[in-house]
């Protein structure tokens, strides 16, 4: 006897394939769900995804200057630096015409860019352009463009200026990222360390890391007991305590930071009390603000709720019977805590830790105000270049690195703890 196994599709009573019917029935729900999230999706794309994408593009973009000096850069690439001390005549010639005929505003922008590569470019080109315009006006045609340039300014015979072109000759360039790590390109386009006096980013990156790690650890040490208390107190006390935890959220960040200055400065409240108590002498007032200590203290206080809240939400759902059960099974309270309670708080510890660390690493206002010279973090440099030097490429590169670090941490976290274990509330 032959057995036939039906492989036909499942049909509904009306004979429509079941899958198709299900899809149709679910379609309305799907459309409705999409419409509900659509405004937010749009908002996020416009205000979050696009700016970040734009920033990441800017960090590798050098097209503006390449559109101003296309011929010069083309010729520059033919320069055999081993053979000739200075670039060939064609480079000077191209530059001559591109300066003479170029759009003034575009050149101005390009000059700012050139100055990032080597200071002095701006004034040199401005001066030269004036002279070149005079020559063009007179209708003369220089015999040697190279000689003309060097005659206008002797720096045109200085190869170090020409070497700095290496940093700009490509439309897409990694130079900003190297700059953000205190590196630059030498005359052969190789990555080398910056001059000693221009190295400041690596130091700041390391400090940013150190401060972020410390702040995270301090927040954990201070926040863990509070979260535990919050989760275990009777409701009416825990509500009151929760208000104290949340109070900082209701106060302006600026006000809180300034309050810390009042507290910590050398003539401030804490030093005053210590002197009054005789703990320290009047000359021995402790410097607690405008340095790394100030940054640490203020940031720990400000970021503390971000540690307490995820911890609290995790601890709240750990049944109290677990500690009792562990003790009942023969574990001393300390053992019970370490082996039974602590492991269950790991989702909270890691969520709080990740949150505080990520916030700390990009923190700006507080370190800027209380950090002084050696308490500033990388965010201050980003703001500096954004507002003062207008070097947006470098800004974007610094931001890009910051983003990269966060993604690495996120990845590590996912590997070690698992992102599904995160609990924020």
């Amino acid at each position, binding site marked *: 006897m032959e057995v036939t196994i039906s492989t036909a599709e499942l049909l509904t009573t009306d004979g429509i394939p079941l899958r198709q019917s299900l899809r149709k029935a679910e379609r309305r729900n799907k459309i409705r769900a999409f419409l509900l999230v659509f405004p937010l999706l749009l908002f996020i794309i416009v205000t979050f995804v696009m700016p970040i994408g734009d920033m990441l593009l800017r960090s590798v973009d050098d097209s503006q200057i390449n559109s101003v000096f296309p011929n010069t850069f083309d010729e520059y690439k033919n320069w055999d630096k081993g053979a000739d001390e200075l670039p060939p005549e064609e480079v000077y010639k191209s530059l001559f015409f591109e300066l003479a005929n170029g759009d003034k505003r575009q050149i101005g922008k390009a000059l700012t860019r050139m100055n990032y590569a080597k200071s002095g470019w701006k004034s040199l080109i401005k001066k030269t352009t004036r002279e070149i315009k005079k020559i063009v006006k007179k209708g003369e045609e220089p015999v040697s463009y190279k000689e003309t340039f060097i005659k206008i300014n002797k720096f045109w015979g200085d190869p170090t200026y020409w070497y700095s072109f290496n940093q700009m000759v490509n439309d897409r360039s990694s130079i900003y990222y190297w700059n953000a790590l205190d590196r630059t390109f030498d005359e052969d386009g190789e990555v080398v360390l910056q001059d000693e006096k221009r190295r400041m980013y690596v130091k700041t990156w390391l400090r940013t890391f150190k401060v972020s790690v410390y702040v995270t650890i301090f927040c954990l040490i201070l926040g863990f007991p509070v979260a535990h208390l919050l989760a275990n107190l009777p409701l009416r006390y825990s509500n009151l305590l929760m208000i104290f935890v949340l109070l900082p959220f209701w106060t302006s960040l600026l006000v809180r930071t300034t309050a810390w200055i009042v507290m910590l400065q050398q003539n401030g409240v804490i030093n005053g009390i210590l002197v009054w108590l005789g703990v320290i002498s009047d000359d021995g007032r402790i410097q607690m603000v405008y340095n790394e200590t100030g940054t640490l203290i203020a940031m720990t206080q400000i970021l503390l709720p971000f540690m307490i809240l995820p911890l609290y939400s995790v601890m709240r759902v750990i*049944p109290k*019977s*677990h500690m*009792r*059960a*562990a*003790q*009942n*099974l*023969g*574990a*001393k*309270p300390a*053992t*019970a805590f370490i*082996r*039974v309670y602590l*492991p*269950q708080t790991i989702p909270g510890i890691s969520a709080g830790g990740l949150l505080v660390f990520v916030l700390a690493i990009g923190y700006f206002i507080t370190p800027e105000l209380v950090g002084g010279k050696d308490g500033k973090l990388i965010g201050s440099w980003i703001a500096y270049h954004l507002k003062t030097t207008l070097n947006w490429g470098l800004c974007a590169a610094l931001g890009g690195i910051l983003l990269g670090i966060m993604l690495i941490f996120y990845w590590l976290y996912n590997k070690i703890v698992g992102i599904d274990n995160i609990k924020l509330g």
Partner: protein
Amino acid sequence: MNDTSQSFVKFEKIDKSYDGEVLVVKNLNLDIAKGEFVTMLGPSGSGKTTTLMMLAGFETPTNGEIFLDTKPISKIPPYEREIGMVFQNYALFPHMTVAENLSFPLEVRKISKPDIKEKVQKALDMVELGNFGTRFPAQLSGGQQQRVALARALVFEPRLVLMDEPLGALDKNLREQMQYEIKHIHDRIGITVVYVTHDQSEALTMSNRIAVFNDGVVQQLSTPDILYEKPENSFVAKFIGENNTLNGVVREVNGSSCTVELDGGFGMVKALKINVNEVGEKTQLSIRPERVSIDNTTSDSNNFSGKIEELIYLGDHIRARLDVCGNNEFIVKVPNEGSFNHKEGDELKLSWNSEDVRALDL
């Protein structure tokens, strides 16, 4: 059993108050013999869980002393008491596998690795979960979690096992099945069990003796059959099993029996004198539904009639709610022998033996 020198667990004059104003447990005296299965039964807030927690060491008695194996234990911290406990929601550690949960009490006792492995496997086999050691508690059903909790409470061979409403979270079928399993395990290994529940059928099924708690006081401590058939006060009569009550006043006392005149002039009832002393005292009469017979008269004077208010068909018997002597919640269970052909609104003739009526306090 009541000889104090032999009692394994002894509560002596225990009082417990949380706020200094209300006593949750009042003058508790309780002796439990070795190997006994004793249930503390009572409504919520009656003090039974508090009593259990005092025994486990999580609450301290406000007054009195608890003895375990003749030694006072009030000063001994919970982790040195060697008392196993099954918690209401099992309290299994979610970050540990079943085997790790079971090893935990052995590890903290610094037992060697091979011994731990053997004991854990034995305990898992006992609850028929031999192959589940590597699972996490969340991957188990409620009944399986319950068994793991039981195995964990027994694996370190405690002197005594406490169970705090361990079956409360299970559905009815599973609960009944687990009742038998716990009872069988108790029979097999002979460990002393103190069990807390508010479910009277659970208590009747499993226990050697039951302590009925109400309002912080043990109302009656007895074996299940005595508790059901000879309740000593109206609370126990009402709490254990189904119970019909009639209120009245004692008119005559005659040795161990008495005659009670029902309120509302419905007549006189002969009853056992249990919790009343004098003529003129108000009393509540208690009669079990299955002890009321219909359509046949007894030699006693306890012949009454009642109007059928409601009939509920329950297969093996028919449950009739009657209006008898002013009580319209009077239940009679009629065995389904096929001869019952009354309808709602009919009058039934009722009678009962005077030995089955107990005159209790009001």
